């Protein structure tokens, strides 16, 4: 438990991605089984302990400190697991159990014995171990690690491509002993066999400015504005995987129901609107939900537009050229004959100017851009050079006024590098600025230094790491699109905003009006977002 607690503790205070990878890698190489497997499970999404919940911890903490002192402490600290860990009185120094023992005991214990079990461990742990234990059982470690990052750490620690790890990942179960045995070279690569496992996606490079391709060698299709998914159906088991390799099946029961086939399809998940596919914002309402209501299913039905076919009836098609896979994909869709799986049509072009014309139309048509794929390309994991390109629609831009600046993280912690900007609207006492977005990249290092200096010299108010500045600096902000949102004061949300130019020359009064931004919104009614 000590090593796992130390790992979580370091992860909390370490801002950099590379440093986090190194910390996790060190741990995975050194810790024994099954501890490291449970640590991996916890980092990659959590371990469920049905009888150890927040209520049990609250009860223990109140017993320790008394109701009033617990309440005051919790108000101050703001986190239940940490409050309890901090106020617990150590009673002895006996060796605390290992992570593996803790998991086994908690899984075996009933509701009644769980609090006593926890209390007996807490007294023998130091404050970091107590915190780690309580975080572990309340779920949500919040140490800035995703499942994907944990897999990258494994990949670096054991010098194995992350795609190979992702390929076996979903066929394995905690505490992942077979995975570690393989990574350490002591066992064969786990064989997913008939399991509906994830296959790493093939990804595209952005098309560089001014590059022209020879149209005959390339397949051109729209880049649809949804989320990329992989549909896997095999031996009666069905799964939907996201780009990061997470299992999102539970979120899309309507798509699962359609998957009456034996194969692996790569495609874009979209929701249906009155005239074909709805804007991305409508799809967003359905993302990240563990359960989905009937109303939601009826109002925003999901479907998949297929790009590629990776497996069919147990045979792997990934080595075949794209054109061959596409022919099989078309027949596959026709056989399934279901309205919720259709084909992303390839677009016939004979010269490059037509491709340029299509790209220019993407925004009007509500498409994210174009995809260009070499007709002879095999389906290879990751971002392979020279095979697939994406050419996104040109961003929109608006001149906005800097309102607040916040310190960055890690190497940028001495710089004001996160910027909130606003647009004008009619207020009760005349024109006022309302925040419309936030961006923290798009500028050069030199520009960052100049911005930092400007912020420090034009500060009106300080709120911890945030400074309110004079309303005097204009940014040209580039963004992919705008959506109505009831969650934001301005009523709009920007997608992918970045600072494209600093308009040192432009007076703030000439910046954009909120009305102009509202007119760009792709959906027209404020949507009800529940987070």
């Amino acid at each position: 438990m000590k090593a796992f607690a130390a790992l979580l503790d370091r992860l909390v205070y370490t801002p950099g991605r590379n440093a986090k990878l190194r910390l996790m890698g060190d741990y995975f190489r050194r810790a024994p089984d099954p501890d490291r497997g449970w640590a991996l499970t916890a980092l990659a999404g959590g371990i469920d302990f049905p009888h150890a919940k927040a209520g049990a911890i609250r009860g223990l903490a109140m017993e320790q400190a008394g109701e009033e002192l617990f309440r005051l402490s919790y108000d101050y600290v703001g986190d239940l697991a940490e409050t309890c860990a901090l106020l617990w009185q150590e009673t002895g120094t006996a060796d605390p159990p290992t992570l593996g023992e803790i998991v086994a005991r908690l899984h075996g214990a009933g509701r009644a014995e769980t609090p006593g079990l926890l209390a007996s461990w807490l007294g023998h742990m130091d404050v970091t171990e107590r915190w780690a234990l309580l975080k572990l059982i309340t779920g949500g470690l919040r140490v800035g690690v995703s499942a994907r990052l944990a897999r990258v750490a494994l990949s670096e620690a054991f010098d194995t491509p992350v795609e190979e790890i992702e390929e076996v990942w979903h066929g394995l179960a905690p505490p992942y002993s077979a995975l570690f045995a393989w990574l350490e070279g002591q066992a064969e690569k786990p064989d997913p066999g008939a399991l509906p496992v994830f296959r790493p996606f093939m990804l595209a490079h952005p098309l560089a400015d001014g590059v022209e391709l020879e149209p005959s060698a390339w397949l051109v299709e729209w880049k649809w504005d949804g989320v990329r998914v992989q549909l896997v159906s095999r031996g009666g088991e069905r799964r939907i995987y996201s780009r990061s390799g997470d299992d999102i099946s539970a979120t899309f029961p309507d798509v699962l129901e359609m998957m009456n086939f034996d194969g692996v399809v790569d495609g874009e998940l979209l929701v249906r609107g009155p005239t074909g596919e709805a804007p991305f914002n409508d799809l967003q309402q359905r993302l990240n939900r563990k359960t989905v209501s009937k109303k939601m299913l009826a109002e925003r039905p999901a479907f998949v537009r297929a790009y590629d076919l990776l497996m069919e009836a147990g045979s792997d098609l990934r080595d075949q050229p794209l054109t061959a896979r596409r022919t099989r994909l078309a027949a596959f869709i026709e056989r399934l004959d279901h309205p919720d799986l259709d084909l992303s049509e390839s677009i016939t072009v004979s010269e490059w100017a037509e491709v340029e014309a299509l790209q220019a139309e993407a925004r009007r048509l509500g498409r994210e851009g174009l995809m260009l794929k070499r007709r002879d390309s095999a389906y290879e994991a990751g971002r392979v050079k020279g095979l697939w390109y994406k050419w996104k629609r040109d961003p929109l831009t608006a001149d906005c006024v800097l309102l607040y600046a916040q310190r960055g993280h890690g190497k940028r912690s001495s710089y004001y590098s996160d910027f909130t900007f606003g647009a004008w609207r009619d207020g009760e006492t005349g024109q006022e600025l309302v925040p419309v977005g936030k961006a923290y990249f798009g500028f050069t290092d030199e520009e960052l230094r100049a911005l930092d200096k400007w912020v420090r010299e034009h500060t009106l108010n300080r709120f911890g790491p945030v400074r309110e500045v004079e309303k005097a600096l204009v940014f040209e902000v580039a963004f992919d699109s705008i959506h109505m949102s009831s969650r934001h004061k301005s009523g709009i949300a920007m997608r992918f905003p970045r600072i494209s130019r600093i308009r040192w020359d432009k007076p703030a009064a000439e910046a954009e009006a909120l009305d102009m931004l509202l007119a760009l919104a792709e959906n027209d009614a404020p949507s009800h977002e529940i987070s």
Partner: protein
Amino acid sequence: MGAMAKGLKPEDWLKVTPAGLYCAPGDFYVDPVRRVDRAVITHGHGDHARPGNKRVLATPETIEIMKTRFGEDAGRDLQDHSYGSTVSLDDVALRFVPAGHVLGSAQVVIEHAGQRVVVSGDYKRAPDPTCPPFEPIACDVFITEATFALPVFRHADAATEIAKVLAAQALFPERAVLVGAYGLGKCQRVIALLRQAGYDRPIWLHGAQRNLCDLYQRLGVDLGELRDVAETDKNALAGEIILAPPGALNDRWSRRLPDPLTAMASGWMRVRARARQRGVELPLVISDHADWDELTQTLKDVGAPEIWVTHGREEALVHWAESNGIRARALSLIGREDEDD
């Protein structure tokens, strides 16, 4: 102690006023927040010692600290008075007793009309190589701080925390280990603790830390060899330990250092959110204030039937006192802040 004269109670002659705690029969204020005729100062921190009072009474070390910080403005008539011996101010007998907070810090023991009140100022019970330890004095009323008065605050053993600094320094020879520490007391204590742990290389200082470190050395606290960051080039600082005021940690000044690893020595570092808010990579729970156990132990040690609680988390300490049969009230003094401690 002893019989209460004519039914007079301590709150009749020691009162909270807008200028601070005022003792009428001695005509003096303790740690006034406004300029007054006669001020008794517990210690040199800015929210206790302020410039511009006419007459100042404090320990010799506190007087020196005030002169270093305020120069000419430290006070017109500075009267130093050592720990232990009694001085009479009109109808009041007064003496200083070590508070263990920083060099020169004192509890003010005030006796009047057969009653004894102890104004403890800020204090701690943990050992500190830079100042004499807190002495508990039996009294009728004990006036206590409450900076860390919640059971979640239990400061670690300072030596364990210092070991973390040395471990980080060994682990990252290419980085400068930058330790944020309040300029009076904490900075010198961290240096002295590093020396106790056997670290004998030069320790580097941000310019703002220099004067008080020099004063400590002059007053006999050995801090070893100290050098100024300003007088060297950036690359020479890789693998070195640097002490800076907390405000400089993430400020422009720190950019000159090679990939600094930011540490911060403060009791607040016990709470993760506070440490992360400050962008601290290595939190060190080292405090010059009493933690929860020290506060409650002190109330037991002094045995006062009544306590007055000044600044901090008064509610929790008042609750604890009342649950333990001690009368307690919150004084709500203005001008006291949670310092970077």
